[in-house]
């Protein structure tokens, strides 16, 4: 704490000032509400437009009263089948693989740190800084030669590599919080490394693993660059379904809004429920 010069403690504030403070507080509250709603407006507009009939979506002035319809959603649900399947496989597959690889690695970097654990930790994060876009051409050629082009396996492999560094940092931060006494007690009981992980550490860090998984799910579900470059039909994901919902001609705004809503809602719901883990995950465990 920095030294603050001490002055005389002020007397109780006079009444008018307290009243002003109260109205000020209410004023700031209202202002924050306005800012929040304004910031949320594009999402709200997407939701509203999704329930419009196509003819009411492209009008001037924009229409706020209309008879809501589920027609566009029905259209989305009849066309998204393969895309959502691919997205689910790529997202869940890569997240599971991230946890399988990430838990032992985080263990080796925290509970019983290996030699040069600091270098290891920074190697992982440095791979996040090297932009994957720089290697997209050769990546395409490699995928072509390995017959992985337009395959869901390719996306699982790449999304795992994309999220693994983040996950290792995050899981490590949770493992550092496991009480030393617990580990000590397990050791006295003669538990080996494996027993230590499965019996002591995993039960303690499992909420942390859930929030790690959430972050991985968000990034994998939303990813477009790799999917667009390396897949066409057999592994096309939800973001690509969105692109396909914009036709060359004709009215499409309501349909697009419904598709965008359906594609975004899973992640929005997950993020709303897990707001606390979100902060920790996005800061890679730095902020508790």
């Amino acid at each position, binding site marked *: *704490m*920095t030294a*603050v010069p001490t*002055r005389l*403690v*002020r007397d109780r504030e006079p009444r008018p000032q307290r009243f002003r403070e109260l109205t000020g507080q209410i004023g700031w*509250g209202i*202002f*924050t*509400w306005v*800012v*929040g709603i304004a*910031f949320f*407006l*594009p*999402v709200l*507009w*997407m939701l509203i437009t999704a329930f419009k009939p196509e003819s009411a979506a*492209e009008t*001037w002035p*924009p229409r706020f009263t209309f008879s809501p319809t589920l027609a566009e959603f029905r259209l989305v649900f009849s066309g998204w089948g393969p895309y959502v399947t691919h997205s689910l496989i790529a997202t869940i597959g890569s997240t599971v693989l991230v946890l399988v*690889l*990430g838990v*032992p690695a985080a263990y080796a*970097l925290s509970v019983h740190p290996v030699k040069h654990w600091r270098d290891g930790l920074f*190697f*992982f994060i440095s*791979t996040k*800084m090297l*932009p*994957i*876009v*720089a*290697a*997209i*051409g050769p990546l*395409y*050629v*490699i995928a072509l030669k390995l017959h992985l082009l337009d395959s869901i396996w390719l996306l699982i492999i790449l999304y*795992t590599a994309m999220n*693994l560094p983040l996950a290792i940092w995050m899981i490590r931060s949770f493992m550092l919080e496991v009480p030393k006494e617990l580990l000590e007690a397990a050791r006295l009981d003669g538990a080996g490394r494996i027993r230590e992980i499965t019996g002591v550490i995993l039960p303690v860090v499992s909420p942390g693993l859930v929030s790690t998984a959430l972050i991985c799910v968000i990034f994998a579900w939303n990813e*477009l*660059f790799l999917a*667009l470059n390396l897949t066409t039909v057999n592994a096309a994901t939800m*973001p690509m379904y*969105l692109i396909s919902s914009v036709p060359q001609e004709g009215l499409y705004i309501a349909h697009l*809004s419904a598709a*965008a809503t359906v*594609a*975004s809602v899973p*992640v*929005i719901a997950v993020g*709303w429920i897990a*707001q606390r883990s*979100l*902060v920790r995950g*996005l*800061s890679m*465990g*730095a902020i508790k």
Partner: protein
Amino acid sequence: MLLPALIYVVIVTQVPFVVTLWYSFQNYFFDVPAPAHFTGFSNYTQAFTNAAFRGSLLRSVEMTVIAVIVSMLLGVAFAVLLDRKFFGRSIVRTLIITPFLVMPAAAALVWAGPMLDPNFGLLNWLLEPFGVNHVAWLSTHALGAVIVVMIWQWTPFMTLIVLAGLQSQPADTLEAAKVDGAGALATFGELTIPHLRPYIELGILLGSIYLVNVFDQVRLMTNGGPGTSTTNLPFYLYQQVNFAFDVGGAAAAGVITAILTIIVATFALRMFARVFQFEEAGI
């Protein structure tokens, strides 16, 4: 225990860069049946003399710097607003974090159509009372529009990180300053900002890592245009591979990008090490 993850990451993230290095010295086009052959540094001389590549590099820097700075300023402002107690605070916080959760491709398309369309877009309607008349934002202010969407999506991220910083500030310090008669502004400048510094650095660092790779908004809002006015590096490389089929050229551009990134990243990593010391300190 460490090895599986280490080997995995090395193979999947480092090998492509080695191959990139290899192809950067090769003449190789997808659409030409002739096999790749060694061409020395010609891909590099081409990349360096290529105005489109240099332009896209600079545009990436410009977009990232503006988006990171503005979203951080907004993030600090939002965090300060949300740090006060008021009715429905958690609802407003939820509203504010939502743009970050919207799929970037969805955000780009919703902004491009329902929000910014010159004929029926909501923004033109909202701005009509201020004398704005059916502006075609994506042709007249393309770069600005793309950056606005980047800022819209990343301000919540900054807000969350700064808010965590504000809430970790010990209440008694603030109380002491108040008792000592320090004004709200002075307290903020002299106590809060120094306390927030590592949080702000962390936000800028992580935000830059993601924003420099922005692709979805460019591809789906402006397709790099009009002309090349919104073509950033990821979009340029995407075009090189998908439309010019120029693997060698894209590889050389990729190697140059990687080298520049490594230079920036060495500084960033040092910053990381410093910022993350407050993790060890147990904040």
